[in-house]
């Protein structure tokens, strides 16, 4: 009777076992070779199109766009070589190859559409070379603006999240708080934060605070809502189990209700983040002299469309980088949740 029940096999492979092993990695095959080499070829083709075809728009300089394509070709070629030497990279290189080729194809189409064929015309639709040139010229100001925006966003988002979590947990747990809190939420929640720009500037003096205050306001509502509903929807059986194990209120709130509500809380954090991007850009167009939103409006005022497009691309990188960070945090914190809910 020493150990009567030994499971025959573990139900899942541990991460260590799924790691790539030289002996077990399959060779690429013809399709694999095509996938791995496609980004190199695409970048070279785009370069060829740019160098050979005549321009129908004016081009002030022509070194940044070729440099970008050359870098793309060189990096993807290095990756293609790396996956031959180190097979554990193979799956990743093969997976991302066509996507990287897509980047070059997309750049090439843009180049054709504007500079080469002039189907979309200046000044509203500059080609990739002009946009890159604009970014390069204003690089210092863009870095500074991105930093200003990040500060504004961080201050606003984190204070909104803190308030939302606090309000959500209290409203989800205590009936009395919910009784008084729900009407407040119903009145304040639906107000678009962007409608309160002037109000925020009147309440908070100076140029920094109104932005974060508006962002916090926009973030607070979805985080509160989803935290509250997450906590209210925790199955009572978890509380029953915890109570029979000797749990008191502190354990029930912090070790049962909040962890169980985390999937819902993360949806709130996601919605809040999307709202914060919107509010950030709008808030920066009014009454401030820095930040990415301000830079965009300012360049638009000068009809510098190449720089406006440039800052849009910077914003894409900025915002999707932050969003990716949130997803990484979620994947770490909600690792236990795989197979329960996915989004």
């Amino acid at each position, binding site marked *: 009777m020493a150990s*009567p*029940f030994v*499971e025959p096999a573990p139900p*899942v492979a541990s991460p260590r076992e799924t790691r790539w092993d030289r002996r077990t990695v399959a060779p690429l095959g013809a399709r694999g070779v095509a996938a791995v080499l496609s980004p190199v070829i695409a970048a070279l083709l785009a370069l060829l199109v740019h160098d050979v075809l005549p321009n129908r728009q004016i081009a002030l300089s022509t070194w940044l766009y070729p440099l970008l394509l050359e870098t793309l070709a060189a990096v993807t070629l290095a990756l293609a070589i790396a996956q031959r030497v180190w097979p554990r990279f193979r799956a990743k290189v093969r997976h991302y190859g066509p996507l990287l080729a897509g980047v070059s194809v997309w750049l090439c189409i843009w180049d054709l559409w504007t500079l080469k064929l002039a189907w979309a015309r200046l000044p509203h639709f500059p080609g990739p070379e002009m946009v890159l040139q604009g970014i390069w010229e204003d690089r210092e100001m863009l870095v500074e603006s991105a930093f200003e925006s990040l500060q504004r966003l961080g201050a606003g988002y984190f204070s909104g999240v803190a308030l939302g979590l606090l309000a959500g947990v209290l409203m989800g747990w205590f009936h009395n708080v919910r009784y008084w809190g729900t009407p407040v939420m119903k009145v304040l929640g639906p107000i678009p934060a962007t409608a309160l720009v002037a109000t925020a500037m009147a309440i908070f003096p100076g140029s920094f605070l109104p932005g974060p205050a508006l962002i916090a306001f926009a973030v607070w509502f979805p985080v509160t809502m989803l935290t509250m509903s997450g906590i209210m929807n925790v199955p009572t059986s978890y509380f029953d*189990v915890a*109570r029979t*194990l*000797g749990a008191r209120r502190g354990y029930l709130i912090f070790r049962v209700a909040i962890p169980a509500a985390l999937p819902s809380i993360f949806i709130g954090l996601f919605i809040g983040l999307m709202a914060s991007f919107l509010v950030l850009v709008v808030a920066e167009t009014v009454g401030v002299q820095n930040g990415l939103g301000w830079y965009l409006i300012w360049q638009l005022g000068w009809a510098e469309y190449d720089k406006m497009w440039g800052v849009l691309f910077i914003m894409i990188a900025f915002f999707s980088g932050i969003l990716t960070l949130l997803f990484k945090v979620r994947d770490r914190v909600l690792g*236990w949740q795989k197979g329960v809910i996915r989004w």
Partner: protein
Amino acid sequence: MKIHVMAGNGELMGNLQPHADVPDEVSAVLIREASKIFHAADGSEVPALNRLSLSVDAGEMLALIGPSGCGKSTLLRLIAGLDQPTSGELHVGAAPVIGPGPERGLMFQDPNLFPWLTVRGNIQAGLVARGVLHRHRQEVEEFIRLVGLEGFAKVYPHQLSSGMAQRAALARALVNHPKVLLLDEPLGALDQFTRMRMQDEVLRVWEKRGTTMILVSHDIDEAIYMSDRIAIMTPRPGRIERLIEVALPRPRQRSSPQFLELRGAILEMLHLAGKAEDGP
């Protein structure tokens, strides 16, 4: 306050000493005229238990069987302290039941493992909840071994088979060294094979620890195989219809003539009880 660990052979149980901070009065359960009335949404009263009396000896394994809806689970929840009786008294040892406590463990049909905790995290949850983990850390490993989950300590519940999850739930229910373990159809959702193994697992724990166990079951075979006495309940409102002594020697043979004879007698009783309910 001396605790006698029944049949403690030192192999696993020797290191698992009862906790000083869990009350360790005599572990008999006494229920006197307990009634429970639920209030339906339309305001009408639904009696679940009607003046039910029952006494369970310390260290006894008692099975509760009866048709679904007869209040078996309600009764267990009252003993666990998760619900309060509308009238009547419940005692565990000398103390009246006024709320849930670590000296009364409860195991549900659904393992109800906390999905955000690993197997180890789940098993030690009771120690964390009582703030005594630091004193009993090595015991957690013993309990993981007791239910045969070595090597799965860092695994999350969604990666476990139903049998393994139920074993983790058993270890979690045992970690506080409860005097009384309430089992609410804990094996009901398992396949026949896993279920028979788990029955032996529970019996092994019961024999070694001398824990008083009250087992709710739908399965007459399980009740006969495991318990010292079987209480048959009648439905709506639930009462104890009859108490049957299971005098078969252990380990019991599921196909012995005495086993089958008792099974037939109980089936007949349940059938009659069902008839009585349907009658005028």
